[in-house]
């Protein structure tokens, strides 16, 4: 049974190939079946394999498919590796992935390039599965780049709009920067440890650097660079908001549930490297913290509903990084899972809303929809609750796990904790704002709900998961990292625990007062000069884009403009010019006058005479 592992990624690949080969000539229904079905099949395969794995007492299973390349002592094979971590990821990818595909069959129905869409989506799932199942870092990198490619393709799916194209390229290039760091990390790792096989290299690292070293830290940091790029963490986060240009299911699958969490997976996967290096872990934590802080503030002032979700995604992933940094490995992965549930839910629900409003994404043009769009409303409500980590939601469980472990971690625990909690407050604040602007207040646009079963079913399932998903945590994830990492019971420091629990509620309350009632007039704050300035600053995502444009993009463009006709070429043009000049000068001497010719001859004779005389 376990040897069916290879089937899991194969199904989506097959789907992709079929859809490509048929060039979209298939009827839409068939396309939908293939597109969603392939993922469904691999989900089934995943469950079978997973069940086998869980029931068996083995902690890991690896399957070698074929030798990729052997050059001297560099030897990589294409092989899959399954352990609990991978299993969770596979579960999320295939499960949530399937639901989103299902949803997309309805969402994309009226769009151009229906089958192209599903081809891309299947390819993405395939690449993502390789990423998490890859036994060697090179195979992981293959998946890593593959998902990047699909993200590029899907962001720019509506390619006739240049803006989308720009967003897509931005996403690809920015992540490419991270990837470069990652690949350099691989080079360094290979040079130091001599292999790119994940398990071997981890063992090797433990043997070579029993108590850490600069090299180890360097590798860890380089890998972190890759993770930052993929997971849209500061300072490489700028691509994610623009990535919302893609169709909403894409945002749900790639930019919320799976791809953006690849960074988290990478770090978790290479855990031992980080355990060996204080600095590296600290960096991870700081990166996460900064991101989640910045993002949550930015989310507060966005007007585009998807951008709000994008920034919230950023901040949630910030939480995960933070968790990894403070050693809450299991919690991080746990939050990854729950976040996949509720964020997918939120995106899909907002997608329904957007669809109902004819692709209107501006929240200020929404409002009062809660009665008109019940299913989206309720599912969105649940999702928001989970996002805001209100009690008894999955989000609550995972986030508390993180915060509490943070509080317990010895190094600067409380500082970290307080910042994180503040961010948690902000989270619930902007969640409330989002909910209010979208569903309450007076109606600004008339919705046309055209959600069919294949669209509300996923919402339903995901809602259930967002609530109940939390309880999965204790069953599965407890054993996730075995002895490593922090064991998973919460011995509460009462005060901390209570604060952690209450802050979100407080946020909700404040949010309610701010947005729903006129207890204090928020206009006054936002219209006041400092308020405006801060608002604008937050709105543009703390001005990272501007900095990058003026520091890198525009200079490069300028250089490209000025040197279109290769400066080096002037070197050669110049030489030819010189030759021409000499040619013209010499030609003057050929004036056809015999006596002048005679003169040159005799002067030539004189010249020879002088030469001979001189020597």
């Amino acid at each position, binding site marked *: 049974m376990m040897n069916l592992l290879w089937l899991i990624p194969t199904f989506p690949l097959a789907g992709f190939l079929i859809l490509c080969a048929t060039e979209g000539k298939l009827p839409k229904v068939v396309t939908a079946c293939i597109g969603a079905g392939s993922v469904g099949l691999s989900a089934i395969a995943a469950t079978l394999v997973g069940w086998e794995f869980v029931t068996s007492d083995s902690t890991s299973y690896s399957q070698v498919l074929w030798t990729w390349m052997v050059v001297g002592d560099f030897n990589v094979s294409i092989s899959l590796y399954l352990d609990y971590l991978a299993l969770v990821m596979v579960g999320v990818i295939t499960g949530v992935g399937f639901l989103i595909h299902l949803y997309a069959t309805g969402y994309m129905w009226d769009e151009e390039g229906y089958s192209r869409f599903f081809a891309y989506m299947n390819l993405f799932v395939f690449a993502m599965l390789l990423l998490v199942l890859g036994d060697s870092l090179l195979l992981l990198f293959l998946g890593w780049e593959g998902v990047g490619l699909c993200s590029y393709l899907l962001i720019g799916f509506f390619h006739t709009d240049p803006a989308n194209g720009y967003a897509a390229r931005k996403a690809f290039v920015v992540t490419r920067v991270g990837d470069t760091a990652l690949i350099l990390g691989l080079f360094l790792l290979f040079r130091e440890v001599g292999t790119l096989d994940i398990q071997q290299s981890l063992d090797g690292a433990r043997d070579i650097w029993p108590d850490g070293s600069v090299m180890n830290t360097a590798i860890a940091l380089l890998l972190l660079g890759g993770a930052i790029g993929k997971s849209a963490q500061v300072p490489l986060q700028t691509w994610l908001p623009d990535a919302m240009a893609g169709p909403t299911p894409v945002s749900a699958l790639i930019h919320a549930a799976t791809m953006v969490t690849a960074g988290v997976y990478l770090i978790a996967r290479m855990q031992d490297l980080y355990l060996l290096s204080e600095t590296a872990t600290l960096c991870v934590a700081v990166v996460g913290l900064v991101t989640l802080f910045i993002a949550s503030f930015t989310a507060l002032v966005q007007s585009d509903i998807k951008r709000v979700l994008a920034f919230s995604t950023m901040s949630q992933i910030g939480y995960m990084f933070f968790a990894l940094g403070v050693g809450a490995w299991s919690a991080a992965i746990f939050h990854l899972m729950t976040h996949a549930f509720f964020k997918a839910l939120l995106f899909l629900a907002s997608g329904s809303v957007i669809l109902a409003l004819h692709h209107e994404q501006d929240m200020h043009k929404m409002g009062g929809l809660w009665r008109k769009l019940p299913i989206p409303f309720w599912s969105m409500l649940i999702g928001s609750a989970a996002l805001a980590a209100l009690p008894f939601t999955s989000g609550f469980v995972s986030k508390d796990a993180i915060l509490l472990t943070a509080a317990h971690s010895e190094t600067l625990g409380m500082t970290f904790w307080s910042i994180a909690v503040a961010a948690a407050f902000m989270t619930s604040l902007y969640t409330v704002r989002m909910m209010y602007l979208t569903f309450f207040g007076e109606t600004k646009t008339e919705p046309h709900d055209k959600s069919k079963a294949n669209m509300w079913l996923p919402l339903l399932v995901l809602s259930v998961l967002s609530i109940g998903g939390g309880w999965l945590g204790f069953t599965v994830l407890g054993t996730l990292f075995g002895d490593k990492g922090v064991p998973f019971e919460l011995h509460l420091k009462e005060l901390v625990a209570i604060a952690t629990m209450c802050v979100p509620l407080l946020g909700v309350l404040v949010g309610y007062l701010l947005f729903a009632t006129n207890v204090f007039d928020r206009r006054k704050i936002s219209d006041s000069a400092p308020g405006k300035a801060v608002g604008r600053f937050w709105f543009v995502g703390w001005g990272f884009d501007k900095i990058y444009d003026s520091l890198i993009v525009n200079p490069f463009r300028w250089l490209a403009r000025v040197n279109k006709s290769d400066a080096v070429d002037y070197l050669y043009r110049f030489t030819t010019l010189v*030759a*021409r000049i*000499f*040619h013209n000068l*010499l*030609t003057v*001497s*050929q004036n*056809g006058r*015999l006596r002048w*010719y*005679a003169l*040159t*001859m005799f*002067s*030539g*004779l004189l*010249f*020879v*005479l002088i*030469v*001979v*005389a001189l*020597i």
Partner: protein
Amino acid sequence: MNTQATLMASLPYIVLAGGLLVVMLGICIRRTHFVAWSLTMVTLIATLASHLLGYEALGEGITVTMLIHIDGVSYLFNALFVLAAICTAVIAYQYVDEKLRFREEFYLLLLAATFGSLTLPAATHFVSLLLGLEIVSISLYAMVAYPEKVRGPLEAGLKYMILSVASTSSILFGMALIYAASGSMEFAQLTPVSGSAEGDVFYLLGHVFFWSGIAFKLSLVPFHIWTPDVYQGAPSIVTGFIATVSKGGVFVVVMRYVMESDVFSSEAIAQAIFLIAAISMIVGNLLALQQRNLKRLLAYSSIAHMGYLIIALFLVATQPSIGFETAIVYLAGYFVMTLAAFGVITVISQGSDSELASIDDIQGLLWRRPIPAATLVVSALSLAGIPLTMGFIAKFYLFAAGIEGEMWTLVGLLVLGSAIGIFYYLRIIFAMTAKPEGELDSVERGSWTGISAVAVLGVATLALGIYPTPLVDFVQTLVRVSGF
């Protein structure tokens, strides 16, 4: 001295002289172009054949009086010159028939010139040098200016004549001084009478005059300036003859001169020649750079080529065998490609009252006149020294010689010169590939004698380029036999 052997050895001269008389008498008896032409051809072919007869008697080489030393190398050059003359005659027939009024004497001059050129490779004495040189030159003055009613040839002839005579007298003067200094006119004994300061001065001065004149005949910078005008003015076929036989002859005799009397032991002279060669390589190519008239262009390129050839001359002074081998192979190649080029111009000019030598005239020639055009392509590539052609082998020899003699400067300049050269040779080719206005049908006009002769030259260029071994071995053996 074995008279019989001597006679056998000098058979080519005898045959050619006899033929010359026969043709002359023939003309006196009856003026018929074709007869005169065929007599000429017979004579030339007989001369060529007589070399084979004479070769047995040759052995190490035979000295006929003090003036002439006949050996394998001189035979080799003779054969080369005669072959060139044959090509000239073949290609010339149509031209003479079409353009000239007094047709028959043309061949007389041709034969005379050839005869003169035959004496040069064997000359070991100032007198034979002078006679050979002048027989060639004087016949050429007439040949250049031969066509009537056209201004170009006359102008060219006058310029060539006056300047050439001036250079001759400079050579003479040089000889006289050298003679005064050394008391002999045999190449082998030209070392100045020892212990007299003036002697050395006269010797050097004499060489200054001598080499200046020679440089003129080889059209080396700064004595090159007559070349383009004469090349352009003269009928292409005559130009071809000047470019090959007269220059070749002069070069051979100079080589022998350098070998027998080691003038280059005198640093000053060697330096002067070196300088002249160096300048010629560059200036010649630069002058040709944007030249639009094919004949002028070839004139300039010939300046450069003669410059390259000086490398061989220097090698002759130190290692005669390699030097001669190089020179022979190079000249052989140069002959073939140059004759081909001028032959093509003659062939394509048939039927038009002016010569089609401008680069505009050959636009799209490759599609209008495939065979001559293809030949011109080959010879241009060959002149540029691109592989597959004889020109490459020749250039390769020069590289080898230069590196063997460790003349790095000259080799470097050779590279530079060839680099510039490629540019204008390619322009010729490009012009011919250019798409002509309105698809012209590619049908060959004109005389098949000319076209086939040209084609043969083109094929020869390729054949020798691809498989030069026979030529190379032949040359090598002959040079060995001649005991250099």
